């Protein structure tokens, strides 16, 4: 050891011609290479981890979910909105839940047709409540409020980026109210399915 140190070598760097070989014959670029190679050994494990971590992003999208929610008779004729749970099968990762509440909708009778609104507030995902006295929807979390037809009340300020999310309704056999249940992204003005 002592011997080799006392005779400094004049060799060029092992990997590049620019680097002047020092006493230990390693230039910055060699060290960087070493570190990179060393880090490279972690690529497979980190990649595998991230790959499985983001896999829910590529999960199967639920198909069109048409749920029978109520009968026409159950809806007040004066157009007062009424909240109904959506009962459907649900999958959570490895568990398959048979028919259980997966969300809720407001149904509102307008003459012979029915309007349906997602109960989830488009702002931050709380559940919107309905005030019978004020004949308004309001969100108890951040005070967004909506008219009875689901449109925003913007004065003085509305926390919601868009009107309440309307859902498609079909009336089958003249009595059964079927709702095409969907969930939407919150916090954006665009009504985008999540």
């Amino acid at each position, binding site marked *: 050891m002592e011997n080799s140190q006392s005779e400094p070598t004049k060799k060029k760097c092992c990997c590049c011609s620019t680097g002047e070989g020092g006493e230990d014959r390693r230039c910055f670029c060699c060290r960087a290479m070493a570190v990179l190679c060393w880090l490279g050994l972690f690529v497979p494990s980190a990649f595998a981890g991230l790959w499985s971590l983001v896999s829910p992003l590529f999960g199967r999208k639920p198909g069109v979910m048409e749920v029978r929610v109520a009968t026409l008779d159950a809806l007040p004729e004066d157009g007062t909105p009424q909240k109904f749970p959506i009962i459907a099968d649900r999958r959570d*990762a490895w568990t398959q839940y048979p028919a259980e509440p997966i969300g809720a909708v407001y149904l509102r009778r307008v003459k012979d047709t029915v309007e349906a609104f997602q109960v989830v507030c488009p702002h931050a995902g709380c559940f919107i409540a309905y005030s019978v006295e004020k004949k308004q929807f309001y969100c108890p979390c951040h005070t967004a409020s909506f008219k009875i037809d689901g449109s925003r009340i913007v004065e003085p300020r509305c926390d919601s980026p868009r009107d309440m999310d309307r859902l498609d309704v079909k009336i089958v056999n003249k009595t059964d109210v079927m709702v095409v249940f969907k969930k939407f992204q919150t916090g954006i003005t665009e009504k985008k399915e999540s």
Partner: protein
Amino acid sequence: MNALIRWLDSRTGVVSAFEAYWTRRIPGGPGWRYVLPSALLFGFLVQAISGLFMWMAYSANAQGAWESVFWLQECTRGGWLLRGIHVFTGHAIVAMAGLYAIQLILSGMYRAPREFIFWIAMAMLFCSLGLMLTGDLLRWDQVGYWSTQVRTRFLMLIPIIGGDLFQAVVGGSDFGHLTLTRFIALHAGVCAVGFGVLVCCNLALLRRHGLSNAPAVDSPEQQYGSGQWCRNFCGWVVLSAIVLALVFQNYWGEHPGQLRGEYLGAHLGAPANPAEAYSAARPEWAFLALYQFANIFPGEGIAGTSVSWKVVPIFVIPSTLVCLFFLMPFLARLRGGHVFNVCVTLAMLVACGALSWACVAHDRDNEIFQRDVAAGHLEELRAKELAHSPQGIPPGGAISMLRNDAKIQGPKLFAQHCASCHPCVGPDGKGIPCQKPSAPNLFGFGTRKWVAGWLDAKQIAGPDYFGKTKFADGQMVGHMRDAVKELLKDKDIADDVKKQLAMIPIALSAEAGLKSQKEADAADKAKIAEGREALGEDVDCLSCHKFQGKGKTTGCDLTGYASRDWTIGIISNPADKRFYGQPKEASGNDRMPAYAESPNEPAKNLLSQREIEMLADWLRGEWYEHK
């Protein structure tokens, strides 16, 4: 002994390392102002110990998280103490990390060469906030679930990648098992380990650069072991005392028959219910200011884009401020930079304080908020009562237990399906009101008082009975109003009729077999027998109703009247021949829908068998009650 120590030191170096640590110089002498870094270390160690033991009892899945925390809190010895220490030390750490960062700025100790000490302090603050946020969800109760829902949904505010980011964090488009597995890994792995590393780095850098810029003097008074260690120790004692005081804050007071876990330690609310939002969810204290700040901004899209203005208070301004704080060590090099930094820090403190206070004050005066809090509390008590019951928590988890509980679901089902016609309001005005009542008031269904109303000519025609139905002028009302009135006029039999009218409700109400009248029914066996006889006597109920095989079937069958089976039957199909099965023009069903008309095709029915059972049980006041 000395030989052993020398041997140990020569092999490991620990003894001399401790010696060096103990005698290291503190420039300017020891002081209380240096207590925070060591208190943070102590806090971290306490969290590591308590957290590890909690982890041994924790189950990170949607049907097991609340259940395992509940079990730890209320069914194990000392679990409440463990949770209490962990939760309140967590709050203390956030406060201390914040104070430490502020202290560094105000004392100027963030300037060169201590930039990294300051950055580490900032990172410790964020790490402790991260621990608070992730820990909040783990107990999987309504408050934690819904405040985390809102928080994670804020990720969707970020343009383009927001939606995917949310899914990656939450592990799908909805909260579930994967949210918990991810959050426990973030909490106990990423944030906790990160915090521990930062605490140690902080101490190491403090040693490298010294606690202050004062000139170092070689005197025994300026050694760590001479005064600083006991100040630090005092800091640990004070921190422990505060945490224990918070754990035991409800110790004094009346707690008849309660377990320690029910009132000591950290709070545990009702189990998370993805289908019913807890509207009174508010962020932890450290985030109240941000919550209130965000409420100032509208939700509207920013001019022509789909990005909401909310992105400004939630991401743009906070991250700008964070950048500003990270740059403070460099700003301090400029003239007036330090003064600027101090002013910004103080202004931030004042603003955060004011916003948090505004939020608390707003909620305190907010009736809706208080009402939602109270409703959540009732649900919590019920969930725990059921979990402690002999049936306990079923394999489907606490939520399936609540979804099958008549006391919780009854009023909800009634409000949804019955209250558009039936009120259920007691004499005190409490209960479930009906906007436009058009059917009998079902408060006290099946009780003697309620049944007696049917036999009272005035009441039966009133709004609480048949007054608003098509039977308002029907056979039953007519019978009570005319025929029975005539009987009462006849002096020879008036007393008998009166007695019959008094006994019939007792007999009919006994058919219901209500839990609340168990004792009364057992005591009044003779009256009940008399009442049964009376059905066929002068008042002559059997001229329309059937009872135990006798009588006609114009009206509903009185056998087992208002019993569980009878009540389930009438909700399932009121037009069945047992109830109002007669042709409409005779006495048939008025408007009540059949909620389970097709027993063989459950999918066609409005309510499931279990829902109807719960409605019947609730109407009849029959549910588990811990005595």
